[in-house]
């Protein structure tokens, strides 16, 4: 659309599954008649001959020849609708029309405002109680979110965050954590076709103040604060950014269960290492939330047993190469690594970065490495450019040590660990939202 504004007639080609999405994006950008042409999904892994058949075939949306759509999109004179564009205000009311509880519950489901689990209806009284959990005024703008980089940002206030916190079943004392997550700028409901999610790790005194779980079942539905804060982060993301609706504002092909709730506290008192927020430069007395974008792969193991190195290397090789891991260790595992000589998280992360390798052929064949990192390598951006120089059979390092996160949590009922794909996009100060 920027090219059109620069005076260059343009046609954008998409695969047909994105038809609804691209039309809604065009409308939101004030150019609803943007010329689009569609080919069948997929493009990936299709041979040149198959792609040629797409070009010589019909547009699966208009049912007209694809090339006719393309050529007419560049040459057919504009009509009145094209010339005027579309300008309009979009408003969101503060309150929904009064109705019965049953009808309101159905309305919230029909409008895709829930995660399809029962919610607490956000009555004025409940929202007012939630607002008492912060010193900030209800009309203060908290931030803005969007489901993808090519959609417009939506803005929201403290009150709108409170509405979603109520819906999730959170208590007012959790509200500063939820506000901090909302202010992080990182949506927990990305529209990526990869079905990403966002995991949040809470550090500092507020963990104990509000009773967050860092022990048995810390990553499961066994702690009220963990469960409802994580749920609130997801609900507020979908509702405050303008939706997370399949085919429109959500395109994750498989979906992701981490999108229900994925928030827990680090077991700082039982960890032999510095807590995550101190690693990030905060004081131990600060309360923070660190958000990790990913959640696409999960590996698991025990130990560190005699073969821990082999297990780690197998797990790294099986991971998505573009997404570094978050290693979540039960305290038993963390203490075991200390006994092996890893006296800091950084020393273990360095070992992982030094040894997590795959062949260059396998690395560059990864779909998202090719899409996201290959252009950077071609442009000379390091370390990607050096990796691109490797011969197909050469082993190349996948991660930088600073990309690898280690968090300690768990109830010490077993020396277990998880490896979850996640890149830390932000660590936010919760105290700013008390």
């Amino acid at each position, binding site marked *: 659309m920027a090219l059109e504004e620069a005076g260059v007639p343009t046609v954008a080609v998409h695969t047909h599954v994105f038809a609804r999405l691209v039309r809604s994006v065009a409308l939101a950008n004030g150019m609803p008649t943007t010329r689009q042409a569609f080919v069948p999904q997929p493009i990936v892994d299709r041979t040149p001959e198959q792609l040629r058949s797409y070009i010589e075939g019909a547009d699966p949306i208009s049912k007209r020849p694809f090339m006719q759509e393309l050529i007419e999109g560049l040459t057919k004179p504009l009509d009145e609708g094209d010339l005027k564009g579309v300008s309009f*205000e*979009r408003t969101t009311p503060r309150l929904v029309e009064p109705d019965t509880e049953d009808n309101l519950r159905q309305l919230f489901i029909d409008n895709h405002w829930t995660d399809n689990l029962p919610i607490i209806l956000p009555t004025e009284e409940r929202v007012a109680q939630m607002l008492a959990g912060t010193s900030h005024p209800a009309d203060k703008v908290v931030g803005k979110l969007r489901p993808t980089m090519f959609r417009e940002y*939506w803005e929201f206030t403290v009150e709108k965050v409170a509405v979603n916190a109520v819906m999730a079943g959170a208590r007012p004392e959790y509200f500063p954590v939820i506000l901090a997550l909302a202010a992080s700028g990182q949506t927990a409901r990305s529209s990526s076709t990869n079905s990403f999610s966002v995991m949040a790790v809470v550090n500092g005194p507020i963990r104990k103040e509000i009773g967050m779980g860092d022990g048995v079942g810390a990553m499961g539905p066994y702690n009220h604060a963990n469960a409802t804060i994580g749920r609130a982060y997801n609900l507020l993301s979908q509702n405050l950014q303008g939706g997370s609706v399949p085919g429109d504002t959500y395109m994750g092909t498989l979906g992701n269960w981490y999108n229900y709730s994925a928030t827990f506290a680090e077991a700082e008192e039982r960890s032999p290492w510095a807590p995550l927020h101190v690693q990030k430069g905060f004081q131990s007395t600060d309360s923070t939330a660190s958000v990790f974008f990913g959640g696409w792969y999960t590996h698991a193991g025990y130990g560190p047993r005699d073969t821990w190195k082999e297990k780690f290397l197998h797990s790294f090789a099986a991971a998505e190469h573009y997404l570094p891991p978050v290693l979540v260790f039960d305290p038993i595992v963390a203490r075991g690594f200390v006994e092996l000589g890893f006296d800091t998280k950084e020393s273990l992360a360095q070992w992982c970065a030094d040894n997590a390798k795959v062949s260059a052929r396998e690395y560059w064949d990864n779909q998202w490495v090719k899409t996201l990192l290959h252009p950077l390598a071609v442009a000379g951006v390091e370390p990607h450019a050096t990796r691109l120089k490797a011969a197909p059979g050469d082993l190349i390092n996948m991660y930088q040590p600073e990309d690898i996160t280690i968090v300690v949590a768990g109830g010490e009922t077993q020396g277990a660990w998880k490896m979850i794909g996640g890149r830390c996009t932000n660590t936010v100060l919760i105290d700013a939202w008390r």
Partner: protein
Amino acid sequence: MADLLTVHDPRGYPPKVTGKRLAARLDKLDGKLVYLVDCLFDNSEVFLEQLQHWFEEHLPGVQLKHIKPRESWVDDPDMRAAIAADGDAAILGVGL
């Protein structure tokens, strides 16, 4: 009759939509320079190569030039400026 409840709307605030005009269309493609913009999705370059072959076979008078942004999913003003400088039209493919 059941009691009526008043509840909050959970949605955020969208920005105002400001209408923008499309560029004037070309009277013909023959003799024009059309940029084929690779959106960097996996295999999109193969698709654009096939599109180039189609033009060469059916509309050989159309000049074609391949171009890529520096990075996936990030606006590249330099690329846009290059297209606007001498391009008559552009085809983006294959993107979302």
